């Protein structure tokens, strides 16, 4: 018995120490200080406080989980002790850090260990208040343990509610701006719910309660609702679907008008990354060919449209955007084949390095002085004609934009439609491809190249098609990017873009079309919206990638589920067994 107790204490302290160290790390990289300028709930808790608290709460959850034995029944007291102890330890570590920093000047090494950070941590009271930390830590640790101990029925709605309320708080500034621009009543509601940088207290409570109740209602009633839906006659079902679809379509169409240019621009960028992601998803996700120079195709698409439509000095032709785009897509496809040919026989890591080289070569060539007479070198290509629905005026002379008689896609609010429509179209094409004979051939190559070949799949043709179609999608993204920005610079085709695209595919779910979209929203959209925290963007990426690999290596929206939907011929039972088995195997 004594042994057991020691063990419990040791686990709790270990967890606490670890989360304390993480908390100190967050302080020392300056995250806590930067984040404390944003509220989660106005005047009550800042984002900085929130992440420190989150470390202690998660210490509580982890300690509680580690001390509960799944084979025995729950031992709440044991878990509570462990959770509290872990929380206290976290608090003690932070307190010790503050105490230490009063003695030693940490700033000579850690730039972010500034006086203002310690003012913040000590509530401007020197060391008088640091005894609070173990107490707060204990409370947070207990909270985590209680969350862990709650039965599934309550835990899920509550964690969901915390998560969604937190997300709403992060973006409350945006919601507020959007709502204030509407009619009086909506504006009032907006001010009531959303503060400048965080939720108001009443807003937070309303959202929390709303999410908890909806979530509990859903988990209790969802099967009934689904059965009810199935009972509606077929015509009625299609009717419901059409109505839902119409509402969604209306929202998508109206969004930029309501939200203003900033959100429209963010969505455009997400769509462009989704386009690239869908392209790379074909080469990497479907066919398993890791391409780290994917930005090259984006660049080819962008430069083609730029050269064909620019009214600047590098404009070769002065065709309209609508003519230039198909050409850009074709040129990208040719480049895909051109870059794919030499690496046909290269596999795995070697392929990654070879394609990485290609990406860099394209960027360097485009930005080089050697090719500057054609591609503008470091000055880039400027004066790209915006797309125009209607008749485009004659080209007069260099540096004078042509006049558009009709609807001009001048800014993000208009290009939004172009980008979103392209992303939806390409996602649709990708889904069709995935379910086709070609899609199966790609997956066979991904799984085992030799066997695929022995089953009669022409590797050269199939791989080249993967490179070409992937390149085409990315080229389309590049084409839209050019008209969004109105110029192209070789410096915007950095390696990091390719790496972002690879990351978003991994986070979203390799080989999954909806996964790519989810990944683009999570990895590109969220940091883009939270401009204040973009300093920590790559920390966020790294953490997200590591956590995904550890917790959910199949991605946020894995493809197996969609794959299995393909074949309904067998009884439902069998497919259920298969899906649980596959999820077990993955877990």
């Amino acid at each position, binding site marked *: 018995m004594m042994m057991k107790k020691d063990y419990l204490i040791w686990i709790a302290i270990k967890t606490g120490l670890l989360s304390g160290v993480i908390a100190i790390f967050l302080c020392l990289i300056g995250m806590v200080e930067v984040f404390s300028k944003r509220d989660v709930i106005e005047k009550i808790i800042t984002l900085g406080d929130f992440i420190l608290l989150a470390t202690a709460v998660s210490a509580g959850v982890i300690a509680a989980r580690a001390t509960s034995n799944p084979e025995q029944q729950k031992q709440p007291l044991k878990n509570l002790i462990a959770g509290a102890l872990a929380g206290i330890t976290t608090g003690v570590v932070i307190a010790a850090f503050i105490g230490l920093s009063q003695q030693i000047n940490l700033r000579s090494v850690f730039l972010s260990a500034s006086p203002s950070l310690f003012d913040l941590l000590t509530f401007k009271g020197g060391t008088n208040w640091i005894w609070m930390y173990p107490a707060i830590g204990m409370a947070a640790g207990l909270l985590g343990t209680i969350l862990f101990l709650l039965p599934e029925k309550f835990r899920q709605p509550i964690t969901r509610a915390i998560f969604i309320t937190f997300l709403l708080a992060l973006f409350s500034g945006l919601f507020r701006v959007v709502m204030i621009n509407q009619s009086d009543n909506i504006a009032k509601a907006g001010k009531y719910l959303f503060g400048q940088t965080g939720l108001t207290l009443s807003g937070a409570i309303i959202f929390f309660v709303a999410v908890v109740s909806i979530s509990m209602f859903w988990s209790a009633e969802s099967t009934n609702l689904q059965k009810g839906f199935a009972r509606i006659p077929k015509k009625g079902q299609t009717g419901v679907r059409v109505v839902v679809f119409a509402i969604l379509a209306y929202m998508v169409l109206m969004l930029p008008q309501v939200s203003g240019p900033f959100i429209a621009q963010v969505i455009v960028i997400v769509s462009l990354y989704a386009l690239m992601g869908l392209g790379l998803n074909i080469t990497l996700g479907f066919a398993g060919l890791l391409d780290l120079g994917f930005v090259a195709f984006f660049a080819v698409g962008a430069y083609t449209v730029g050269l064909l439509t620019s009214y600047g000095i590098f404009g070769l032709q002065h065709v309209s955007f609508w003519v230039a785009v198909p050409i850009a897509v074709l040129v990208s496809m040719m480049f895909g084949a051109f870059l794919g040919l030499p690496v046909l026989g290269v596999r795995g890591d070697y392929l990654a390095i070879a394609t990485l080289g290609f990406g860099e070569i394209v960027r360097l060539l485009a930005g080089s002085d050697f090719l500057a007479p054609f591609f503008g070198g470091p000055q880039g290509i400027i004066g790209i004609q915006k797309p125009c629905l209607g008749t485009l005026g004659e080209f007069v002379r260099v540096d004078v934009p042509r006049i558009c008689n009709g609807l001009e896609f001048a800014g993000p609010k208009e290009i939004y439609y172009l980008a979103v429509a392209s992303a939806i179209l390409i996602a649709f094409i990708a889904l069709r491809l995935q379910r*086709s004979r070609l899609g199966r051939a790609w997956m066979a190559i991904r799984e085992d190249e030799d066997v695929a070949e*022995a*089953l009669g799949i022409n590797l050269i043709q199939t791989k080249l098609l993967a490179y070409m179609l992937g390149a085409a999608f990315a080229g389309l993204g590049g084409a839209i990017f050019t008209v969004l920005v109105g110029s192209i610079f070789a410096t915007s085709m950095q390696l990091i873009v390719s790496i972002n695209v690879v990351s978003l595919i991994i986070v979203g779910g390799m080989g999954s079309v909806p996964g790519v979209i989810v990944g683009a929203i999570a990895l590109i959209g969220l940091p883009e919206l939270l401009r204040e925290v973009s300093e920590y963007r790559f920390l966020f990426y790294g953490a997200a990638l590591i956590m995904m690999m550890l917790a959910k290596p199949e991605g946020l929206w894995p493809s197996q589920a969609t*794959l299995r939907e393909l074949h309904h011929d*067998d009884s439902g039972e069998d497919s259920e067994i298969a899906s649980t088995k596959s999820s077990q195997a993955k877990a």
Partner: protein
Amino acid sequence: MAVILTAKKVIKRFGGLVAVNSVDFDIPEKSIVSIIGPNGAGKTTFFNCITGFGKIDEGEISFEGTKIHRLRPDQITHLGISRTYQNIRLFPDMTALENILVGQHLFLHSSWISAVFNTPGVRTEEKMALAEAQRLLNYVDLKGKGDMLARNLPYGAQRRLEIARALATKPKLLLLDEPSAGMNPRETEDLTAFIHRIRDELGISILLIEHHMRVVMGISERITVLDYGEKIAEGTPKEIQSNPRVIEAYLGRGASTAGMANAHERFSESKSKSG
């Protein structure tokens, strides 16, 4: 009887090692032929030469009169040779049905553009492919397992699925690389019957690599014995059992005086002990 596959003076080298040394080899149409030999005798290498995995250095292999030793694996498959693997090589993350559908790749002709538009032609083709895959799945006794991921299937089922996938390419010659590896006596018996069935019902010639002597002797119409890359014997199971060179290759010189009839049992005993 007509010959479906002929190999003449086939040589395959890996650096200084001659893995297959000047082997002449015939497979009569609609027959079951086995290659046996001690570990490292070059059996699988010879298989790879036939299916185009490894290019041969000298000699020639022809299939129904067409020289195939310069062709790519997919072209050889197109002509009608299909195979399974010693260590099962299914597409693990695809469902059983999809595995078979990949095998049908050669007989589906819809282009990716028509797939994007989901033309009626594509739809009927896919429907027929799916029906054919189901039929093959039932043929190998895997009815109802179509939606399971290949890697979640039990071992024996994986072996059978691999054969179904090979059959999906509509081969005239099927190469089975140690199909009974890891099977218990009962499963082995079923397999033997199944191989017979493939030959009798579908008219497919079968070339077998096998260590399990009971299977080899029971099923083969002709046996070829390889040792150190060279063909040391060829004939009916009876002739092979009493061939002193074969006994020597398997059991060493001293054993050649003892009869092969019980020698092969001793051999399989020692094999089951070691692995």
